[in-house]
């Protein structure tokens, strides 16, 4: 079981934009951490750095105390878009995630996962034949076939309708309970964060920093209609409000110069 430690991470892009400043974060083994915050607060940047798709300008990322540079066998990801390879069948796409597994093991796991994501009869279909929600299910299966210890989710449900999203929440939670990966999830949906996460990290924009970290002490399975759920949700919303108000002065002066910004 694996701890993900992000220490004083900073990222400044080549064009001078400072996307992240001094971000530290600890995700304990098997924990779900939700990253929320306004646009431009560097949530996605943080995830890309953790996935090894971009290099940090400062700070370090460590898995179980061991610093990582670049992509890592223990780390897997689901993106905002399904990003399935259109020339591979559904089964082929799931196998694609099992690069590091022996072939026979991949072949054993694919049908199990297809069954698990409710697409048992779809293995030979093309991605184009699937709905958006089904494609995202395949992307989740692809990310989990290698039993990653750290799973990164970049707003994976944001493009889906409410019903599909709810069913994918259930799927994700049940797969998480089975495989227990540490999950770092970016979302702009507070409801989703409170429903899924053990801890919510609220970020503040320009440059992206951590505003505050809030534990979500609600028993699972969580009931969206419970009073405690609602109270927690409001707490997170208040924290987001605070994070946006904190940048207000800077924005006001910029607005004073140009009303169009």
């Amino acid at each position, binding site marked *: 079981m694996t701890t993900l430690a992000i220490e004083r991470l900073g990222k400044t892009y080549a064009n001078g934009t400072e996307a992240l400043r001094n971000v530290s974060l600890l995700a304990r083994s098997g924990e779900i951490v939700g990253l929320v915050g306004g646009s431009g607060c560097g949530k996605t940047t943080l995830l890309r750095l953790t996935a090894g798709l971009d290099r940090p300008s400062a700070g370090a990322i460590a898995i179980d105390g061991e610093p990582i540079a670049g*992509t890592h066998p223990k780390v897997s990801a689901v993106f905002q878009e399904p*990003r399935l*390879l259109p*020339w591979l069948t559904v089964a082929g796409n799931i196998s*694609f*995630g099992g690069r590091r597994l022996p072939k026979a093991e991949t072949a054993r796991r694919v049908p199990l996962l297809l069954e698990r994501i409710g697409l048992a009869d779809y293995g030979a279909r*093309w991605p*184009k034949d699937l709905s958006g929600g089904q494609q995202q299910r395949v992307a989740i299966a692809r990310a989990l076939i*290698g039993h990653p210890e750290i799973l990164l989710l970049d707003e994976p449900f944001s493009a889906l309708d409410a019903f599909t999203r709810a069913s994918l929440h259930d799927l994700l939670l049940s797969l998480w309970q089975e495989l227990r990966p540490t999950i770092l999830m970016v979302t702009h949906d507070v409801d989703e964060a409170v429903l899924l996460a053990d801890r919510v990290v609220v970020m503040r924009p320009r440059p992206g920093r951590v505003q505050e970290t809030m534990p979500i002490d609600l028993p699972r399975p969580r009931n969206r209609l419970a009073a405690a759920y609602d109270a927690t949700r409001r707490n997170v919303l208040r924290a987001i409000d605070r994070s946006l108000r904190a940048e207000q002065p800077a924005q006001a002066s910029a607005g004073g110069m140009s009303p169009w910004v």
Partner: protein
Amino acid sequence: MSLCVAWELAVRSGLAPGRLMPPPSRLFHTAVALAASDELQTHVAATMTRVGIGFGVGAVAGTALGMLTGASTMARRLLDPTVQALRAIPSIAWVPIFILWLGIFETSKLALIALGVFFPVYLGMLSAIQGVDRKLIEVGRVFGFSSLSIMLRITWPAVLPTWIASLRSGLGLGFMFVVAAELMGASEGLGYLLLDGQQMGRADTILVAMIVFALLGKLSDGLLVALTAPLLRWQDTVRSQL
């Protein structure tokens, strides 16, 4: 169709002269006569051999160089400006130098055809590789694929549709240049038949050769599409639904 019938009637009734614009029945007789003497077969075989070899050489070279410049920034900086400059030379302008270098026989003809095929295939391949979706490449990286496997398992299938389209336009140009090559001096081939018809004042021979060109071009393009169709079954495009 009705145009054909109208023309046939116009010539038969003496309303129009049939010498420069022979009616369909004459064309048919000419075609049959040419085929019966095996003359047509010889010309078709000669032309198709030239197109086949020229297309093969041009397509392989264009694909290989396009892949190289598409995959490597250094190769692109070194080679692409030169290739683009060469492309600016009208292909027919190469004929005199090819004849000096390669002689007046087959080699210079094949070189001209290969050159014509090369450019569209090269350009198609290069721009296709540069246009591959970064997001899909990232999927390969996250799941631990090496640069080479990403090239083989993501870039290559992603560029296939554009590559095949560029092969088709290359094939079209191959037919264009085989005519140019054969008009400039050949003892057989459909281009020679065109020239022969002109010199003998036989409009019917010329038109038969043109019709055969149309058939061969359409046929080989159809063959190319049919051969590559299984590679593109996954595509979600208008074409795949037609």
